[in-house]
């Protein structure tokens, strides 16, 4: 899937992952499809077992289904977000990558605001998921064109809102907007870098900065738009 603009699969080191999904068929299918460089060290099917598996295995990456059954998941939040909330503190080195069949922005933005480093759709091929896992494992954010489009919309980029200072949380800088636009147009990080004459590393740091804003910003559009328009 070209819209998973992850880094290349050049990471030589093996990445340890835990797969969390309530459908065993999906888990086994994904397991069979992942690259050899990815080692599945645990599986879970609901919020409780996911928290246990993640704390036990302390993996590099958790592939996390957004919609996950579980006891005591507060209304208005997804099971996936709840897993991050409960487990993240005990495994500081673990990064979360959300997997979703959902197009609903409130689900995806919810899980990203809870701390996921990106999201990919469940229709993605094993190779794409593997690429995304490596990207997240090396600290990058995984942005799909749809997520980039949502970010541009939610941060008011289309109506010309631009951050004056780089540490402003509620708006994107001009450079971040350029990067997001190119990702929304289907460019991979490498292609974004070539188009803007900057290094891939710089692109990655811009994307991470945007992800941070997405997680920390209090712009009401982030939640309001997500609910109203299901842009993702």
């Amino acid at each position, binding site marked *: 899937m070209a819209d998973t603009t992850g880094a290349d699969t050049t990471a030589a080191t093996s990445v340890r992952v835990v797969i969390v999904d309530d459908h065993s068929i999906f888990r086994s299918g994904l397991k069979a499809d992942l690259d050899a460089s990815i080692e599945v060290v645990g599986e879970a099917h609901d919020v409780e077992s996911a928290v246990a598996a993640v704390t036990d295995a302390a993996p590099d990456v958790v592939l996390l289904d957004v919609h996950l059954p579980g006891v005591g998941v507060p209304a208005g939040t997804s099971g996936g977000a709840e897993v991050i909330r409960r487990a993240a503190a005990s495994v500081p080195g673990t990064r979360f990558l959300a997997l979703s069949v959902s*197009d*609903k922005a409130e689900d995806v933005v919810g899980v990203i605001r809870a701390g996921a480093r990106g999201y990919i759709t469940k229709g*993605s*091929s094993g190779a794409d998921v593997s690429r995304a896992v490596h990207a997240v494992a090396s600290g990058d954010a995984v942005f799909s064109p749809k997520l980039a*489009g949502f970010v541009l919309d939610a941060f008011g980029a289309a109506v010309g809102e631009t951050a004056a200072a780089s540490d402003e949380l509620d708006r994107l800088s001009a450079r971040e907007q350029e990067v997001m636009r190119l990702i*929304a147009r289907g460019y991979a990080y490498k292609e974004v870098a070539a188009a803007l004459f900057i290094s891939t590393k710089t692109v990655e740091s811009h994307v991470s900065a945007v992800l941070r804003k997405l997680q920390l910003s209090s712009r009401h559009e982030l939640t309001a738009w997500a609910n109203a328009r299901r842009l993702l």
Partner: protein
Amino acid sequence: MSRPRACVATGVAAGLAAHLGWPVLVVRAAFVVASFAAGAGVLLYVWLWALTPWEAGEARPSRSAPVAWLLVSAAAVSLLAAAATSSLLALDPLAVDAVDGGSEALGSWLFAVFAGVGLAVASGAWATFIDRPEPERGPRHELTIRLVATVLLVVTAAALVLGPTAAWYPAPTFAAALAAVLGIGLVYAPTLVTAWRELTEERTKRIREEQRSEIAAHLHDSVLQTLALIQNRAGATTEVARIARAQERELRDWLFDGEAPADSDLGTDLRDFAAALEIDYPVTIDVVAVGSSSERASGEVAAAAREAMLNAARHAGGEVSVYVEATPDSVEVFVRDRGDGFDLVDVPSDRLGVRQSIIGRMRRAGGTGEVRPGAGGIGTEVRLRFPAERVGGAGPAGIIGTEGSRG
């Protein structure tokens, strides 16, 4: 025969007059005259009213006569007449009895009371059921009518109970007073009926909505997951995956969009077009729309964008990205594929697709169109830009729309 939608009271007389070719006045007079024959005219009128349809058309029927007011006035007159008769009865009850005119006077008195109560109830019903959808009569019309009818009936009931007839003719007076009290209830019954109906509708709607979200939640966890899995296992551009993707999209639209009407802005239109293309060609098209566009789906940008998407689907296949951004200054559309790419110079001049229907169309409409190799030399990217002041403007759409050849 049909009743005209702009009528005096019900349109029966006018409709019948038009049907028979008589003047309306003659028809009205005939109704009045026939009414003296044991009410035949009234019965015929009501029968025709119930069975004759409105004439064809969309207009809301409007009535020039204030029927509710006429009814309530007639009720007042009838009840006043009853009061007058009752005072006659009370003056000399024994004498009336003696000449055996008692039953006759009593009969007309009772008739006047019941007619008055009936007319008052009818005015309330008319105001509620027939006048309500007519805003010209004002929001307080219904309330005022009902209030006047209520006052009439309350006064009647009080007069009956406290008046002189109660002593002389207790049974008929009691029946009349009961009728007046029941009448008050009936005046308000239409409101209760309407309120009850609205409540029931509301509840049905809520139940349906709840059911839908329950089904949505269930399908989300089962069918959508399965469809995603099929796409995953089958490879993105195989036929099976395409079918699964189309099904997923349809199901999702049905589940989550509910009864919201599909608006036809540019993004929505291109998304629909992408869905149609995915069924016909081995391609997956991601449409991302940013900003709210005032550009209509029928505009030139949409036509050129569709042409570009069709080209990408037909010649490149695979994965295609479409990005629509509407800013206050302009509308931009990017269509990017990852096919073999082509050079515009190599395209034979008899192939009008790209030149005419994308670049030419944009230029004629006042925007710009560009076809260039995609990033990193992979595939093709079509860029369309349209300044905002021309957005939604009336270009010579009729001519261009038919001329561009597809392909």
